[in-house]
């Protein structure tokens, strides 16, 4: 039974990730990318792949490092601290978790490519402004050996640059999950100008023909196939968001120790001290929830729903508190673009919505707890 504390390996991994990211992909890199209009960094992803991060959930049989979910969370947390932009969540966490449920040659070959950084994925889930993955209107109609897809998916994270798309569609047999090239004929990507400066798109499916092999799992079993990947993604996003909350908090406490008003450092005011201390407590609880989700995903993944939703709900809430207090305690400078806090705030907002907001996950928790 794994303890709710970091193992030595995890500590080493986190130190290595910290060293690498604070040099190669710090917040200043995101600023640079925003200013130049880039929203992905393929060279960085190659470096991450070389370090085994792209294959963090790819089985060793498919040449992955297969370090597990808790390790993926260690990496995601460090990326959150640095606001690092990468296809890690969509590809290394969600697509890999999804594909490793299959043992055919096609899945294995895709997993191999993921592990070496040669293939990226996006999950096309939402159709409305809110996450509700099983409410699907996009249709999949049988035609000959395959299907024809028609409809629209919104807020597809990594939707412009990903090589392949995983999409949930409604067929006569129920929900079906398809794996298709993002460059398929009839598929249009409308890039979104996101507040967090990252890649996201609305995808329009207009008579997109896919072969029978594009279907993952049985017809009608689409959501069951998707679920483990969703939960893995939600937990990793919670880890990323926790890292974000910690980094924003650390900027804030540094500022409290340095900024002087009325002739003294503002960190000596009890009104601010107590708010900072409370926020630290919130972060501690959230960190525990993320650790717990990682342990359960690694040990008993089919019983992870409650743990994952607690983690995602908590992380969403804590990150928003952290950035809001961050701006307020910084005062005017917190409102300036020149200062990094705004980047944290915008990412926290996007992460809050992606893969289910607070209400979605708290609702799941209540349901699982019997009310």
């Amino acid at each position, binding site marked *: 039974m794994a303890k*709710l504390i970091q193992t030595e390996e995890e500590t080493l991994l986190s130190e290595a990730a910290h060293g690498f990211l604070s040099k190669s992909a710090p917040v200043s890199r995101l600023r640079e990318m925003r200013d130049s209009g880039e929203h992905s960094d393929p060279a960085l992803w190659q470096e991450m792949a070389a370090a085994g991060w792209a294959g963090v959930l790819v089985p060793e049989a498919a040449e992955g490092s297969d370090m597990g979910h808790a390790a993926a969370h260690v990496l995601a947390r460090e990326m959150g601290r640095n606001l690092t932009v990468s296809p890690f969540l969509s590809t290394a966490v969600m697509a890999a978790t999804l594909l490793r449920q299959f043992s055919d040659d096609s899945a294995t070959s895709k997993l191999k490519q993921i592990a070496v950084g040669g293939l990226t994925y996006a999950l096309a889930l939402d159709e409305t402004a809110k996450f509700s993955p099983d409410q699907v209107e996009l249709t999949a109609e049988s035609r000959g050996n395959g299907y024809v897809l028609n409809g629209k998916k919104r807020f597809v994270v990594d939707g412009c640059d990903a090589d392949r798309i995983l999409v949930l569609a409604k067929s006569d047999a129920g929900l079906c999950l398809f794996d298709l090239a993002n460059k398929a004929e009839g598929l249009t990507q409308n890039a979104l100008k996101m507040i967090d400066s990252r890649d996201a798109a609305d995808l329009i499916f207009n008579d997109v023909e896919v072969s029978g092999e594009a279907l993952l799992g049985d017809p009608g079993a689409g959501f069951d196939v998707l679920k483990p990947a969703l939960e893995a993604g939600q937990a990793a996003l919670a880890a990323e968001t926790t890292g974000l909350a910690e980094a924003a908090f650390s900027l804030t406490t540094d500022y409290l120790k340095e900024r002087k008003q009325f002739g003294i450092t503002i960190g000596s005011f009890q009104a601010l*001290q107590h708010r900072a*201390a409370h926020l*630290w407590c919130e972060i501690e609880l959230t960190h525990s929830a993320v*650790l717990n989700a990682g*342990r359960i995903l690694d040990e008993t993944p089919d019983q992870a729903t409650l743990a994952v939703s607690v983690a995602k709900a908590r992380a969403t809430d804590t990150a928003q508190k952290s950035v809001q207090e961050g701006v307020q305690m910084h005062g005017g400078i917190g409102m300036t673009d020149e200062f990094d806090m705004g980047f944290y705030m915008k990412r926290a907002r996007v992460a809050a919505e992606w893969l289910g907001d607070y209400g979605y996950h*708290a609702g799941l928790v209540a349901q699982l*707890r019997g*009310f």
Partner: protein
Amino acid sequence: MGEVNAGRDHAEFRREVREWLETNCPPEMRDGAAGESSICWGGTTWVFTCEAQKIWLDRCAARGFTVPTWPKAYGGAGLSRDEDKILKQEMQAIGARSPLDSFGIWMLGPALLKFGTEEQKLHYLPPIARGEIRWCQGYSEPGAGSDLAGVQTHAADQGETWLVNGQKIWTSYADRADWIFALLRTNRDAKKHLGISFVLMDMRSPGITTRPIQLISGASPFCETFFENVEVPKTQVVGTIDRGWDVAKYLLTHEREMISNGGNAMGSGRALGAVLTESETGQSDPVLRGDAMRAEVDSLAMAMTLERYKDQAEGGQGVGDASAMLKYMGTELNKTRLELIMAADGADALTWGDTPASSWLRTKANSIEGGTSEVMLSIISRRILNLPG
């Protein structure tokens, strides 16, 4: 979420415990009752609520299960934390009541185990484990609440003994306790933290009187305790003379963890989910439901945090100042829980008797006793965040 981490390699121990409980736990003690009214406090003044309560205590005491993690020599069962967890899980599974709760178990025991002499341990611990001697805690004074190190109850040096004069307040159950452990001023010239000793006194000593204080909950768990020329042998000091603050600090840390873990004052054990499902309001009021969801998410995260800190403590990293966080978050969440239970029960909760009303009122002290929420936040701010002043 504890079940998630349950030991898989302790199957043998689990089976043993399950069998033992099956044979030894009387049916009356399997009603899942928790909280003030079902607790067995023990001590010479204790009146058992029924025969089964006494049988259950005696059987557990004989097996070391009143203090499972204490060494066998002092009345415990010498269990590891994993084994202790299994015992707790198995007890919970059959709704077994705790056989004995007391300040001796929670507070003095840990202090003696850490700071006591071998002689003191052998003398004081076994009667605690058997529920024979009931202890109370003499910390706060009218002039020393949050500023606890300002205690003034004075112990004057008389060679072999001390002569104690002064007053304590908020002494839980002093009127029913056999002994008291107290912080006394043994040196008025030293700096305030360095002139305090941790002293054990027999409550029957001439010169000690108590007066219960009625609280808003209608109960009187706390007392004023007066000391008038009380003679105390010097052998009854725990740790070094004048360095009682070290013992107190250790115990306060321990107390904070304990309170956050759902100590006896945390009120009704009803889970929010059950409360909402049972009550009409809980089903129909969307605002209450929303608040309850938030509380549920937070208390699950709190449970995981307690688990994490226990794992950390077991790995040799103490909980230390973070106990302030556990205490603060645990008690604030508990107050919220009882507010929601009151709201869910509506007018049904507004009468005395078999309602959550007295629990609800009792929980208001959670964020005051053992260090206020504000003191906890100041500790975090100074010692963990290193904010100035």
